[in-house]
């Protein structure tokens, strides 16, 4: 596994083994060179120990470029994005490696209004970084640093405008915070609105997380799911370290497939929204199409990765889009300015339970069953075109989409084969309405093996 990744998504790596202070300084200076000056730049971080080092470097790089910096301290990515818009900042930097394990860290960059950088802006940021021609301010124009502690409260205020918190007081909810920033927000929310939240792994941790911070059913099954029935809870949620993704457990203690979050939130959101477009990637469940069709909406499928979703969002008027998301539990809603926000997603699910007066397991049971199989195999990148051509030839009877590898759709099943952006492996995903498409999945894996 690579220990450092510098891409359009920013800077990510294992601190000390790939990601160094020098990378941080140069990336911060590149971002400071990219964005307009005159308004402050916000900085926040997740509780990883290395965050202290990255923060010093980011602050130094931005100050040196003449930007005033406002430090939000420990803050989740959605809180930082919210604060950028509220404080009319020039942009922001989120320090945190989200769903990666504790020894990783990363920098994510945001423009004014808290938006993710466009593909063109990301490319320019990388160019500046690689050239290392930074526009440092002269000595008397170096920026100044201040701190701001009200970001979480302002964010909570905004959530309260969208969701009926008093109406959710009847629910008992168990949340696995994975020692991350969700703890900060949920504790505040529960105290302010009298919500019956039971938080586990609440202590924010810098070094040893209670478990891998992935929002998958397997992880949700470890510590969260077994607590739900004994505590007589109505639902359980699991967040990654910076709470942009979530996993869901029913009141019976059953972890749901990560694929379920997007279709459920779409089902809740579409009747409330004017927008009739749902944006998702090619690897996400076809249940999204089925739910969208019920509400007279359509699904736009884009390549895997946050950047493709962001570019797709930019290609429509904001009121045309009802929501966007992916099968990893990351969902963006227009009320929240289209940022991946696990906590908003959780409240959408709880509101759905309340409005329908149904338990979570009942809501889930009402959806048709889809079975998804996911696998990966090593394959040299140069063999990929041959593989895709071979698969396209063999599965001519389906509808092909080549926006990102190859996706082939039939009326009740589909597969998606693509090269990972992070490793030299091929990912194979196969889904069928009803029973798992085992034969198709095995045959796809065999074909990858035969080329390897």
């Amino acid at each position, binding site marked *: 596994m690579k220990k450092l990744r510098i891409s359009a998504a920013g800077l990510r790596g294992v601190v000390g083994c790939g990601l160094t202070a020098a990378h941080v*300084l140069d990336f911060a*200076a590149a971002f400071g060179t990219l964005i307009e000056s005159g308004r402050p730049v916000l900085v926040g971080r997740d509780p990883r*120990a290395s965050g*202290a080092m990255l923060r*010093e*470097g980011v602050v*130094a790089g931005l100050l040196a470029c003449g930007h005033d910096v406002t430090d939000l301290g420990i803050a989740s990515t959605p809180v930082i994005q919210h604060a950028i818009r509220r404080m009319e900042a020039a942009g922001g930097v989120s320090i945190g490696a989200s769903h990666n394990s*504790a020894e990783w860290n990363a920098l994510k960059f945001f423009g004014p209004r808290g938006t993710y950088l466009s593909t063109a802006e990301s490319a320019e940021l990388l160019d500046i970084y690689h050239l290392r021609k930074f526009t*440092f301010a002269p000595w008397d124009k170096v*920026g100044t640093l201040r701190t701001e502690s009200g970001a979480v409260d302002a964010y909570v205020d905004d959530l309260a405008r969208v969701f009926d918190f008093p109406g959710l007081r009847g629910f008992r909810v168990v949340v696995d915070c994975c020692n991350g920033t969700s703890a900060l927000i949920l504790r505040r929310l529960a105290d302010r609105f009298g919500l019956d939240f039971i938080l586990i792994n609440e202590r924010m941790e810098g070094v040893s997380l209670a478990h891998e911070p992935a929002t998958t059913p397997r992880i949700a099954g470890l510590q969260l799911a077994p607590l739900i029935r004994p505590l007589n809870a109505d639902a359980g949620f699991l967040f990654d370290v910076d709470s942009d993704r979530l996993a869901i457990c029913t009141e019976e203690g059953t972890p749901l497939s990560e694929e379920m979050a997007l279709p459920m939130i779409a089902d809740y959101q579409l009747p409330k929204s004017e927008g009739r477009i749902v944006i998702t990637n090619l690897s996400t469940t076809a249940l999204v199409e089925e739910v969208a069709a019920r509400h007279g909406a359509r699904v736009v499928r884009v390549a895997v990765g946050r950047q493709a979703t962001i570019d797709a969002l930019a290609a429509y008027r904001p009121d045309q889009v009802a929501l966007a998301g992916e099968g990893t539990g990351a969902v963006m809603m227009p009320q929240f300015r289209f940022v991946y926000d696990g906590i908003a997603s959780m409240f959408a699910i709880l509101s759905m339970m309340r409005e329908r007066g149904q338990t979570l397991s009942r809501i889930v049971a009402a959806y048709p069953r889809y079975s998804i199989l996911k696998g990966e195999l090593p394959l040299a990148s140069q063999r990929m075109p041959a593989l895709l051509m071979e698969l396209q030839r063999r599965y001519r009877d389906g509808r092909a989409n080549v926006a990102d590898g190859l996706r082939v759709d039939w009326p009740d099943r589909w597969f998606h084969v693509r090269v990972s952006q992070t490793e030299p492996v091929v990912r194979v995903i196969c889904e069928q309405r009803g029973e798992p498409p085992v034969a198709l999945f095995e045959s796809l894996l065999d074909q990858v093996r035969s080329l390897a």
Partner: protein
Amino acid sequence: MPRREHLLKIGVSGIRGVVGEFLTPSLACAFAQAFGAYVGPGRVVVGRDTRRSGPMLQHAVCCGLLAAGCEPVDVGVLPTPTIQIYTGHTRARGGIAITASHNPPEYNALKLFNGAGLFFNTYERSELLDLYHQSEFRQAVNAEIRRVRRDYETPAGLHFERVLRHINTEAVRARRFRVALDAVNGAGSLLSRRFLEQELQCRLHAIFVDPDLPFPRVAEPRPDTLGELAALVRSSGSEIGFAQDPDGDRLAVCDETGRVLDNDDVLALAVDAALRRLPGDVVVNLTTSSVTDDVARAHGRRVYRTPVGEANVVEMIQAVGAAIGGEGSNGGIILPAVHLCRDSYTGMAFLLDRMAETGLRISELAARLPRYFRRFGQARYEHGRLGALMQALEDQFPEAETDRSDGLKITLAEGWVHVRSSNTEPLLRIAAEARSEDGAERLFAQTMRLLES
């Protein structure tokens, strides 16, 4: 070689440059990481003067230290001697002061200290520089990364206590001295007020004590830059005026008439005061006035001479166990009993102590010193010609005593001449001193004629 302006200098004395295009946060971070790798994982004290670029560089330095697995202790805005004393006292691995001392405001620099709070010696400096150039830094992983600690409270008290135990504090307090202060809006802005008003009970008239404002005058405290202090002394009827540089290691003194004393005389007064209270000899550099020799002789003590440079003086003080040392021309007073560093607070305390003890005015104390006349100048440095020049100079004064440890110093019965090449610029610096004004002028002119021929 053509004369150049050095906007960035990375060398054995650390890293110094014009902030912006030259001294960048990346450089400061990398240098701090090399420093952290050199001193090892543990506490490293980080403080700064009041320059606008200070916080930016401090964050870059802390980034590099954290990346090396060190635990930075942020002591905020403090004079360099206070940072050094705190570093030594708390047994930290080392310390970094972010200050370009008396250089103009567009400059900044990192001053580096070892675990004893002393400037790195020659060997330590070159080892660190090698480490920096090799870029083989220790890279701490997540579990090894510490947090930045803060201590804004203890350092000042620690420093004051160290200084005041060597003087008769009660006697000074009882006099309620009327004192004027010019802290150049530097690191002494807050500390010096506290020191003079609260610790020494002076009636203080202070200017340029706002650490948030830029330097109001040339940062180096010299007679020609201290007009405002002189005016303040006169208008407030102060008995003495003190001026600091931005990082509070250098001191200049103004008497009650508004006359700025010669730095060599200030050092001599401090030496006199110190020798009355402490055993041991005196160490000064070759360019320091003979007035210090006269003072030491009166106490029956010896004077050791070193090449110019604080580190040289400090090393000699350690070697001979001296009571006091300093460099006359730049206002540096080093009292090892306080700490082996230049310290303006030691200077202030000893002068006030002497005034309290004798009941004399500062002008009267200065007038009691033997009178010397000095001339300073500079000439272009030409590398290939230096040896011939030095020899020609020596030949001109066949009866003189010579010292070649830092350029050439020629000592005659009537006075001396010292010619040396600058450590920072391609220049020769010339100093001449004699008992009479004519004598100083003669020595100086004779030397300059030769150098310019």
